[in-house]
């Protein structure tokens, strides 16, 4: 059972994306992520519909997270894309990207392409500092648990 430590701060895109989702349509996203990260920490290779993404030597993973706002279970909700560093013990999982999934059950190439396009647009908006305001707004307050 490969345990991992989760890092949501290393990739500067992850928390701003979470914050945008929270403001737009998913006010309970933090609770949802708390629950799913607890599971992923125990075994990132099987928890939350874990699937390695081909082409990255088993370092890039996708997990699914249900949404209590839309109550769609895990087939809807969010997808979390992470990179795993196995040189640490326990392994370290860097959450990099997150996007909302449509409520349809079917997985098609078009649907995935649309989700990636939407994610690109979100990142572009974040980059320009539109709507969400400056990126720093979405960054968490400094805390004392730095390791």
């Amino acid at each position, binding site marked *: 059972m490969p345990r991992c430590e989760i890092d*949501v701060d290393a990739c500067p895109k992850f928390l701003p994306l979470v914050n945008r989702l929270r403001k737009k349509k998913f006010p309970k996203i933090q609770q949802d992520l708390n629950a799913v990260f607890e599971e992923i920490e125990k075994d990132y290779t099987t928890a939350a519909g874990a699937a390695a993404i081909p082409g990255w030597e088993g370092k890039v993973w996708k997990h699914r997270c249900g949404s209590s706002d839309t109550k769609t279970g895990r087939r809807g909700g969010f997808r979390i894309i992470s990179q795993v560093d196995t040189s640490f013990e326990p392994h370290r999982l860097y959450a990099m990207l997150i996007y909302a999934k449509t409520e349809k059950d*079917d997985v098609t190439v078009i649907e995935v392409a649309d989700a990636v396009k939407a994610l690109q647009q979100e990142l572009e908006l974040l980059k320009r500092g539109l709507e969400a305001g400056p990126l720093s707004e979405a960054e*968490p307050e400094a805390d004392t648990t730095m390791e």
Partner: protein
Amino acid sequence: MAAAAAVTLDRFEARTYDALAGVTRVRRALRDHGLLFATGAFAALLLKRFEALISNEWLASLRPDEAETAARVLGPLHARLSQVLELAEAQGLTHHWLHRRGFEVYRAVNDRVADVLESLHLALNEDFKPLIGVCADELKDRPGRRNWRSSLAALRD
């Protein structure tokens, strides 16, 4: 590694088509009110055998051309399984004591197939690769690691 993946891909294709044939027979039994129990149990067995092959190790080892083949082969199985689950749900069979366990297997395998298929489509998406590349580069300059719980809790308007 590549040779092992190629062999596994052959087996993967064979087992996927076996599973697809089994699920198609179940669809016929549902439509024609045929012998669902025996057909359904056999299809569940084929699906379990198939599921054992689609491990994350196998998924991670796929080359782009293999990922394309895998996505092409998996698509029809996912569509057929979803169709069978819908049909069974409409006929109230998914909660029937005789068939419930079989349909639980179908649902679990379909969830796994959907996860794998999504992963394959992401891997083959030309816009997705650069996004991951940029994020991976950003990780190189990563700051000190905070506790994820407090980082999430600190998000604010």
